[in-house]
């Protein structure tokens, strides 16, 4: 006999309006009686309606995993299973998408077929860490669902105290502002550390994010323990003929108001002949003028990445953004990429050995001081790491001369 659907008057209100409705999607799954997930979705809708009535959540965690891995499954057991038995287990599989979130329709259709057979048919594209979230699976079906996903080339993402699934922007694939090969960096760094994702043994989570330029489209500075942001060291590229065309098109006033005046370091000026005067030594690579004049301006040619570390959200010491650890790492040759991978590995090792339980790397750095962290990782200090030198006099400076010597030696060694 067909299982009856629950009345969902509150959720029904979310079926109207111009934006695509997730409730309609859930109902389509609940009504597809041919599919094994239909009854689960009927009760899922019932429990969700109950949450809307009482304004409470009714899921609790637990332990579910697949053979060979310690993480990646988010177990959900219902606290109101007596009323909604078919969705008593509603686990999620976090699965890593292809870098840059590119899909063939074949891959998406295969994912749908697998999830319709073993799960609820509900897929979130994507979670905030960049996972494909296959939502709604019984404990028994987690293994067969994962086996089939794994057979088509997909792999589990991260959960718990582990390396987490990473994200990279569209970058090289479709963006002229991209300053490095994001796909390569993303895949090499993460795939080189995969054991830390699949067998959680870190003090807490660790996230990498890869943005091709300082527009930071994957929100790396706010959200990543290690943010890898594309940038350049030489002069910005300027096509003066295109600058003139832009001025002719929008007018001098608009050009000055929206480009020259908005430069944060007053590095731009409009010449009398409508070409652009750029003070590249003052430019901070913020991207604004390049964003406005996409045809006339582009990043320089000596490209690489800035690495910032320590970004995280509230728990427990408050919000933190990542701060500069490596102002510039050249990222072009195989050797350059190898250096990035090695640095990532060193950071993970340092984190594993030195962070307290439930402490993010930004909190560790705060606790021990940035200078000690840099020393441990053998990274030379650089004025780009601070907004300004210290203002507090409470510091011992008896080895100042030795430190100053290091600075001048480093400067000599890295002089072009």
């Amino acid at each position, binding site marked *: 006999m067909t299982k009856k659907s629950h009345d969902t008057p509150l959720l029904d209100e*979310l079926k109207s309006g111009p*934006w*695509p409705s*997730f*409730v309609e*999607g859930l109902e*389509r799954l609940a009504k597809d009686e041919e599919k094994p997930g239909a009854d689960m979705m009927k009760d899922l809708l019932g429990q969700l309606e109950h949450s*809307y009535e*009482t*304004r409470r959540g009714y*899921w609790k965690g637990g332990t579910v995993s697949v*053979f*060979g*891995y310690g993480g990646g499954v988010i177990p*959900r057991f219902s606290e109101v299973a007596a009323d909604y038995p078919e969705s008593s287990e*509603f686990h*999620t599989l976090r699965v890593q998408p*292809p870098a*840059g*979130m*590119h*899909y*063939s*329709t*074949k*891959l*998406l259709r295969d*994912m*749908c077929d697998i*999830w319709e057979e073993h799960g609820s048919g509900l897929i*979130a*594209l994507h979670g*905030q860490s960049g996972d494909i979230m296959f939502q709604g699976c019984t404990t028994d079906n987690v*293994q067969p669902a994962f086996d089939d996903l*794994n057979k088509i080339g*997909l792999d589990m993402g991260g959960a718990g105290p582990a390396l987490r699934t*990473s994200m990279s922007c*569209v970058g*090289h*694939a*479709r*963006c002229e502002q991209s300053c490095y090969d994001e*796909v390569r960096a993303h*895949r090499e760094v993460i795939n080189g550390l995969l054991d830390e994702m699949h067998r959680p043994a870190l003090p807490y989570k660790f996230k990498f994010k890869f943005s091709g330029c300082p527009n*930071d*489209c994957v929100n790396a500075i*706010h959200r990543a323990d290690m943010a890898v*942001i594309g940038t350049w060291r030489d002069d910005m590229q300027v096509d003066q003929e295109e600058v003139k065309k832009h001025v002719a098109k929008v007018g001098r006033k*608009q050009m000055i*108001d*929206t480009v020259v005046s908005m430069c*944060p370091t007053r590095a731009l000026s409009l010449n009398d002949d409508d070409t652009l005067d750029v003070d590249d030594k003052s430019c901070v690579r*913020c991207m604004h003028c390049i964003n406005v004049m996409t*045809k006339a301006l582009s990043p320089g040619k000596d490209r690489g990445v800035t690495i910032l570390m320590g970004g995280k*959200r*509230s*728990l*427990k*010491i*408050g919000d933190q953004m990542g701060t500069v650890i490596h102002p510039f790492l050249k990222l072009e040759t195989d050797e350059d990429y190898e250096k990035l991978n090695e640095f990532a590995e060193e950071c993970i090792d340092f984190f594993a050995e030195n962070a307290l339980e439930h402490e993010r790397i930004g909190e560790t750095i705060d606790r021990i001081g940035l200078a000690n962290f840099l020393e441990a990782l053998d990274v030379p200090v650089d004025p780009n790491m601070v907004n300004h030198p210290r203002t507090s006099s409470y510091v011992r400076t008896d080895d100042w001369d030795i430190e100053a010597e290091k600075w001048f030696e480093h400067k000599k060694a890295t002089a072009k």
Partner: protein
Amino acid sequence: MNDAVMPRRPDEHGVPDPFPYMHPTLKDNYGNWAWHDRPRPGVLHHVAHGGDEIWTVRAGTQRQMDVGTIRKLCDLADEYADGFLRFTTRSNAEFMCTTLDKTGPLIEALNEAGFPVGGTGNSVSMISHTQGWLHCDIPGTDASGVVKSLMDELHHEFTHEEMPNRVRLTTSCCQINCGGQGDIAINVQYTKPPKINHDLVANVCERPAVVARCPVAAIRPAQVNGKPSLEVDEKKCICCGACYPPCPPMQINGDDSTKLAIWVGGKHSNARSKPTFHKLVAANLPNNAPRWPEVAAIVKRILQAYKEDAQAWERLGEWIERIGWSRFFELTDLAFTKHQIDDWTGARQSLNASAHLHF
């Protein structure tokens, strides 16, 4: 062990190689793009150094998608975009077309199928959000429902580029704020200390870990009714809910005490100004499912003021930086209260140590 019941060992693929799944024009011109423009809202036009061109049509989705919705997107990609598509970090689907001619019919077909086209340039893009009541184990509110309600109201702003600059919205269903920073963020804000079920604490919670989790050291071990439990110093408690995930018997949500707050001026990008955190501008809004009208009204008011008053390319936070907070509260008719004066670590840096004032 019997081979027949031995589970399959996983192939540790790691992050999949995207090139087999990438549109051929994108693959051919990987790392070789020259410039771009936007012929209309929802469409990006990229030109490669070698002369290849690609038109991307961006469509909003509900993120939490049934297989039917995903297959519909696939049908459209097969018909208009050579069998490929990609997703943005804000869950918009992107279809790559090799000619401008294909974009018109694709947009029509997307609209026909219920997917709004937009989210590019100076528009309000899709809200980055969390799981909420649908799947999270510690939610104070729903996520998909709040987003659906708001995007219904902001449909015009998604499909048009009429804002001074891009607007990024986020929602989060607890104070951990998985939704992240935004020009406008709608986040749960608890207003009462946890209600403790002392019968369950000893069995469910690792008590020292819970004590350690509290940001203000308000939790201590205690014997209650002869059982080991935890107690909260309610005068110290800041109602953040940090104790609730590691100890579910410390219920932080209440029928009427889980509220919503609105924050503004967060920014990820480094363009012009450095990245910023969002700031609290309204709190104590009711958790009014299924459509949260009180929240939507304030979000729309803030957007309206920004749209009317900001200069081109100013992000919401940069606009406020220029006009000052006094003027912001005046234009939006929102209250400035003592609760908006920060008192957490580093708070002094948010105080005005100058004679620079806005009147």
